[in-house]
């Protein structure tokens, strides 16, 4: 990404929501003292979850939460793109399609029929896809939910007119900086940290559990090596497929690897048993 030109003295900020749980917006509301800092440096002109103040665009910065899952979403994201000078997608839904992208391996029509009494009232797309699959995006903030520190860093960078600093390394670096004992090595729990983008501060391993990849694939992830090691040390393939298909299943590297493992599993099961 190239440097962003410095924003006006109090840039106009807007926050939009698509298919999502609102957790990323809640992170913003939960930022407490930092929310006041943000309100000091920006005018918040559209953030329906926070304020009834709702002014029309164009906006300097648009934060977009959620994935594209209906025909109406497709039209609305194009409209929003046109209204925002700098468009940032926030969270696993907006950057990778979210948990709801699990529908991409199934039939959305079947789900609608199973869940709704009158499925014909539901207008939905067959897939849940990230914002970047529909319009150009200037910056992506990963995570389920996003990390407030990263959001403040991004907004600081916008104000100053420099490149936001988002680490190009994996979660393991954060575990080691935090002094966390590796759950993969010390307990044999398959962990996605070595192939997952940092940003959470190594949260899950610090709570005695594996990283499940909510920040999506890290730079140059070597998934085949990692899943191969876990498999050789006793983790069944179907468990690895489920691990890869949780919060960012539709992210390219995770999707390709879960498909590869699933195909290998199917081939192995198809072999006649001796």
């Amino acid at each position, binding site marked *: 990404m190239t440097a962003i030109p410095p924003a006006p003295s109090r840039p106009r900020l807007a926050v939009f929501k698509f298919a999502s749980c609102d957790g990323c917006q809640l992170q913003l509301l939960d930022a407490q003292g930092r929310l006041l800092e943000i309100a000091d440096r920006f005018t918040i002109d559209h953030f329906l979850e926070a304020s009834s103040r709702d002014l029309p665009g164009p906006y300097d910065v648009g934060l977009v939460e959620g994935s594209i899952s209906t025909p109406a979403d497709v039209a609305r994201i194009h409209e929003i793109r046109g209204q925002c000078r700098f468009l940032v997608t926030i969270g696993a839904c907006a950057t990778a399609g979210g948990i709801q992208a699990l529908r991409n391996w199934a039939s959305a029509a079947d789900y609608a029929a199973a869940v709704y009494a009158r499925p014909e009232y539901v207008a939905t797309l067959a897939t849940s896809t990230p914002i970047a699959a529909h319009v150009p995006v200037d910056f992506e903030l990963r995570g389920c939910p996003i990390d407030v520190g990263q959001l403040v860093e991004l907004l600081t960078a916008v104000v100053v007119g420099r490149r936001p600093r988002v680490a190009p390394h994996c979660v393991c*670096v954060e575990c080691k900086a935090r002094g966390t004992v590796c759950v993969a090595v010390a307990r044999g729990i398959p962990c996605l940290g070595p192939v997952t983008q940092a940003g959470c501060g190594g949260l899950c391993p610090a709570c005695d559990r594996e990283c499940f990849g909510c920040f999506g694939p890290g730079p140059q992830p070597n998934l085949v090596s990692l899943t191969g090691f876990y498999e050789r040390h006793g983790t069944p393939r179907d468990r690895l497929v489920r691990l890869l298909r949780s919060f960012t299943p539709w992210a390219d590297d995770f999707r390709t690897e879960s498909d590869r493992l699933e195909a290998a599993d199917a081939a192995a099961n198809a072999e006649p048993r001796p």
Partner: protein
Amino acid sequence: MSCSAAIGPPQWLAKPDFQAVIDALVAAGHRVVGPRVAAGAIVLDDVACVADLPAGWLDDQDGGSYRLRRDEAAGCFDHVVGPHSLKNFLFPAREPVATFIRDGAGWREQPLVPDPAPLAVLGVRGCDLAALAIQDAVFLRADVADSTYRGRRAGLFIVAVNCRRAAATCFCHSMQCGPAAGPGFDLAVTEIDDRFAIEAGTTKGAALLAAVATRATLTPCTPADTAAVRDVPQALGRWMHSRQAMPGAAAPRSLDTTDIRDLLFGNLEHPHWAAIADRCLACGNCTLVCPTCFCHSVEDVPDLSGDRATLERRWASCFTLDHAHMHGGGPRPTTASRYRQWLTHKLAGWIDQFGTSGCTGCGRCITWCPVGIDLTAEVAAIRAADARP
């Protein structure tokens, strides 16, 4: 290191009386850290009493695997190195190096907050004493000494341990860094049956031992006792060299260091680097657990108001894509080039730069690599297919 007449032969101290060492360190104003069981491993953390030490625990280590195991016969220090080292304390993963506050048209530098107490570390092994000397060579250069490192280092008190057990990942014997605790300790202990043999290595250590003598009984070792104490790590070293089977432990690793600088620099285009890259995740764990790796970046962390900015030093790793980032990108875009950079710097370039190897044989990088990549095996593979003319 200063020596004096007070530094004599080892003396016996009953195990429960090791409390007197901890108490004397606390009385001298130290924060005392040492090995403790936490989160399925033996980590370095605050220690208040002898019972905090991991007596009865052993660590089984291998490539990509670490498991604690109960063994009632195991002493306080029969485990070996864990995921932490002195580096976590002397050169922490993150720390401010300067903070500036806007002051009218200019900036005012805020003084750094010093550590509340000097550190004392229990159970430092030969490999980690060697690693300390290596980090000293980096951070305490005569021309540029790092101020926060220097401050911590000056206050540091080391209680070393002579190993009597090695994990399958230990190869200090190949690197001449253990298993006996080398120079650099203030006190060293050797565990024999139900007592410790304790000895001073510096006047600071001798003074502390004098304070211990006011709280507990110290009995001088006879010459025969001293010989038996000296033989504990030597026997382990002989075993590591002979690779004899030892109950409950796999055969140790070793590293042939013959001509290693020229071997690695002469094989920069060896196909084995690409074979390693098929397995390597470029996750950086090996460099982060390595007690000698010193790379770091200094980042400017302004707050949103723009009125306060901190320069923060953070651990860096040669495995990350932005390492040594320059105009136009990083110099090593492939994992093969990054692994090669790490290994050749550690085992070859270090010799040119600092006059020693950058590896002490502690084995941490083998254990804590999520896919168990083993530098001793990788060097052996290159040596076995040496492509030099």
